[in-house]
C-alpha cells in the first residue's frame, strides 16, 4: 500500500475509534471523579448583550443541523424517499443551509465576543480557544460543502450514512469516503477531532441537559436521615 492509503486508513478507519474511545472514557471518568467541573460555564453574567446574538443562533442552529445529521444517519432510506420529490428536497436543503449559516454566525459572534471583551477574555481558557477553532473549521467546512456540493441530504444518506454504519458495526468500510470531495473529508476528520476533544472541554454540558426537570415537582427537599419517616 502507498503512504496515501495508509493515511486514509488512519484518518477514516482508525481515528473515529480513537475519538469515540476518548469520548466515552473521558466523559465517564470526568463525571465520576470531577462532577463539579460539569458546567456550561456561562459567561452571560459578565456580558449580557452580545451573548444573545452569539448563543441563540449558535445553539438553535447547531441543534437543528445535528438533528439533521442524526436523522440522515438513522433513516437514510426514508430520507431518500422524502427527497424523491424536488420541492421537498429544496425545502430541506435550504432550511439546512439556513441553520448552518445561523450556526456559523452565532459561532463567529461568540468568538468575537470571547476575544473582544476583556472580562470575557479572563474566563477564556486555552481549551476554549482550541475548541472554538475546531468548531469553526467544522461549521465552515459543513457550510462550504452545503454550498459547493448540493443535495447533501441525498448523498449523505447514500454514502455517508453507510460509512458511519460501517464504523458503528465495527466493520469500517472507508471506500465510501475515499471518493468524496476534499471538504467533506475535512468535515469528517475534524468531526473526529471534536468528538475526541469533547471530554476535555466545556462541551460536556451537552451531556447533562436538564432531563428530570420537566416532570419533577417544583420543590425539592433533601433529607439527611437514614430512614425517611414520611
Amino acid at each position, binding site marked *: 500500500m502507498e503512504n496515501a492509503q495508509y493515511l486514509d486508513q488512519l484518518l477514516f478507519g482508525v481515528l473515529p475509534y480513537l475519538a469515540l474511545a476518548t469520548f466515552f472514557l473521558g466523559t465517564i471518568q*470526568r463525571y465520576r471523579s*470531577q*462532577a*463539579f*467541573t*460539569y*458546567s*456550561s*460555564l*456561562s*459567561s*452571560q*453574567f*459578565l*456580558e*449580557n448583550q452580545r*451573548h*444573545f446574538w452569539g*448563543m*441563540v443562533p*449558535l*445553539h*438553535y442552529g447547531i441543534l437543528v443541523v445535528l438533528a439533521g445529521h442524526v436523522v440522515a444517519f438513522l433513516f437514510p432510506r426514508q430520507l431518500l424517499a422524502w427527497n424523491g420529490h424536488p420541492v421537498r428536497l429544496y425545502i430541506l436543503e435550504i432550511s439546512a443551509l439556513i441553520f448552518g449559516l445561523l450556526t456559523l454566525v452565532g459561532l463567529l459572534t461568540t468568538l468575537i465576543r470571547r476575544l473582544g471583551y*476583556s*472580562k470575557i*477574555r*479572563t*474566563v477564556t*481558557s486555552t*481549551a476554549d480557544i482550541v475548541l472554538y477553532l475546531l468548531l469553526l473549521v467544522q461549521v465552515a467546512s459543513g457550510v462550504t460543502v452545503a454550498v459547493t456540493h448540493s443535495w447533501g441530504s441525498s448523498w449523505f444518506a447514500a454514502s455517508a450514512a453507510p460509512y458511519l454504519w460501517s464504523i458503528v458495526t465495527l466493520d469500517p468500510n472507508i471506500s465510501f469516503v475515499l471518493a468524496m470531495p476534499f471538504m467533506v473529508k475535512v468535515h469528517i476528520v475534524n468531526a473526529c477531532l471534536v468528538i475526541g476533544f469533547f471530554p*476535555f*472541554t*466545556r462541551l460536556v*454540558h451537552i451531556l*447533562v441537559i*436538564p432531563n*428530570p*426537570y*420537566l416532570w*419533577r415537582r*417544583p*420543590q*425539592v*427537599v*433533601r*433529607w*439527611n*436521615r*437514614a430512614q425517611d*419517616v*414520611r
Partner: protein
Amino acid sequence: MNVRSQVSMVFHLDKCIGCHTCSIACKNIWTDRKGTDYMWWNNVETKPGTGFPTRWEDQEKYKGGWEKKNGSISLKSTDKKRIILNIFHNPHMPSMDDYYEPWTYDYQNLFNAKEGPDQPVALPISKVTGDHINVESGPNWDDDLGGSPIYAENDPNLKGLTEQQREHLFAIERLVMFYLPRICNHCLNPACVASCPSGALYKRGEDGIVLIDQKKCRAWRSCVSACPYKKTYFNWFTGKSEKCILCFPRVETGQAPACFHSCVGRIRYLGVLLYDADRIEEVAHLPDEELIDGHRSLVLDPNDPQVVEAARRSGVHDSIVESARNSPVYKFVKEWRIALPPHIEYRTMPMLYYVPPMSPVMSERNDKTVDNVSDSLFHDIEQARIPLKFLANLFGAGHEAKVVYALRKQKAVRWYRRALTVGDVTLDEAKRMLAAADCTVEEAEAIYRLTSLCTFDERFVIPPSHREEAIEMMEDPHERRQSTGFGFLAGPRRGL
C-alpha cells in the same frame, strides 16, 4: 398535618444601626474567593434606596418570584417552558453591571513607584480583569442616603405614595432613613429551587436551609432570575451559582450564623418554627391581602398537643419541638405578631421576618415649631416621617393594616416602659395605649425584655441538629473510618 421544622429569623429594624458588621463577618468567611468578590450574601441597604443589585425589588425588570394568574401561581419568568426555550440566553438575568465590578487597589505602587514630583497613589484595579478601572458604583453606593436624588428617589417601594408624601420624605433636613439588612430568606416556597433545571437547589428537610448542590449546578442561571430577593448569585469564575448557606456548619454545631453572632445592634434573632408543609401550596395561592395571615397560619403552636403528636409522626425530634417552644422567632411572629415577612407578594413564603422600624414624627406646623402633643394616642404613627405606605409596600404587600398593628404595639410598649421609668406618661394612659394596641402588660414586659435586655442565649435558640441520625452515621464505622480523613482537597476552579 405534615410538621416540619424551619430555622427562622427575625431582624428588629428599630435596632439596626447600619454598621455592616454582619456583611463583613459573612464576606470574610464565605465570599472572599475569586468569582464571589461581588456577592454579598448578607448586605445592609439604606431605605429609601435602590438596594443591591440596583432596584432588586422592581419585578417589572427582574421578573423574579411567583405570580398569580387565573387562580394558580407560576414563576414569573422562569417556569419550565420559558426556561427550556431561554436556556441558552436567560432574558431576565441581571448582569455584573446591575451589581458592580469588584475591585481592589494597586497597593504595590505605593512602594514600588519611581521617585517623582508627586505622591504615588494606589489606583483601583478590577478583580475580574486585573486592569485599572474607573469605579463608578459599588455596593452601598447609596449608604446613608448618599446620592439620594439618584438612588433614594428610585426606590421601588415609593410606588403609591402621594406627591406630598414624597416631598416630605426628601425635604432636606427632614430626610429620614432606616436600614434593611438582608440575607437569604430560606423560603418555604422558594422560586430558586422550583426554577432549577438541574434540580441542584434543594431545601433541607430537617431545618429548611436552602442550598445549592455545587456538583449538580450546571450554570443554567435560572435561580438568579427566579429569586425575587436576588439572593442567589452567579460565580462567574467557577460557573456555579452560590447563595447564603445560613452558616449551616455553624448552626449544626450549635453556633449562631456569623452575621447573627457579630451583630452589634443585637437586632437578629434565630429560632425554630414548626410549620405545616401540606398547606404551603394552599397559602401561596391566597389573595395578596390574606397572604400575611395565611403565612402566619402555617406556623404551628409547639405547645399544642395535637401539633406535638403530629410532629412526632412526621419525624421531628422532641428536642426540636422543645427548641421551638423557646424560639424567640415564634414569639415575634406568632404570639406578638410584630414581625412581618418582606414582600410576601412574591409568594415565596420567606422565613426571615422584620420588625418594622419606628421613625420620628413629621413635626410640621405652620409656625415651624415642633409639636408632638396630640389627643390621638397613636398620632405619630400615622404622621411618621416614613410614610406607612412605604413600609406597607415593603412588609405588607401594599396593605397598611399589619404594619400599623406592629408599630402601634411597639409604640405602646415604649410608652408603657416610659411610664415606669421616666414617669412623664401616666401608667393609666400607658395601659390605655396597651389595650388599644392589643397588648397585655405581661406581653409588653416580654416584648421589652426580648427587645432590650435579650442575652445571647435568648436571641439565638439553635435547635439540635441530630447529626447522630444523619446518613453518614448509619454507615459501618470501620468502613467510614477508612474512607475519610485522608486524601486531597481541591479548591473550586473553572472547568477542567
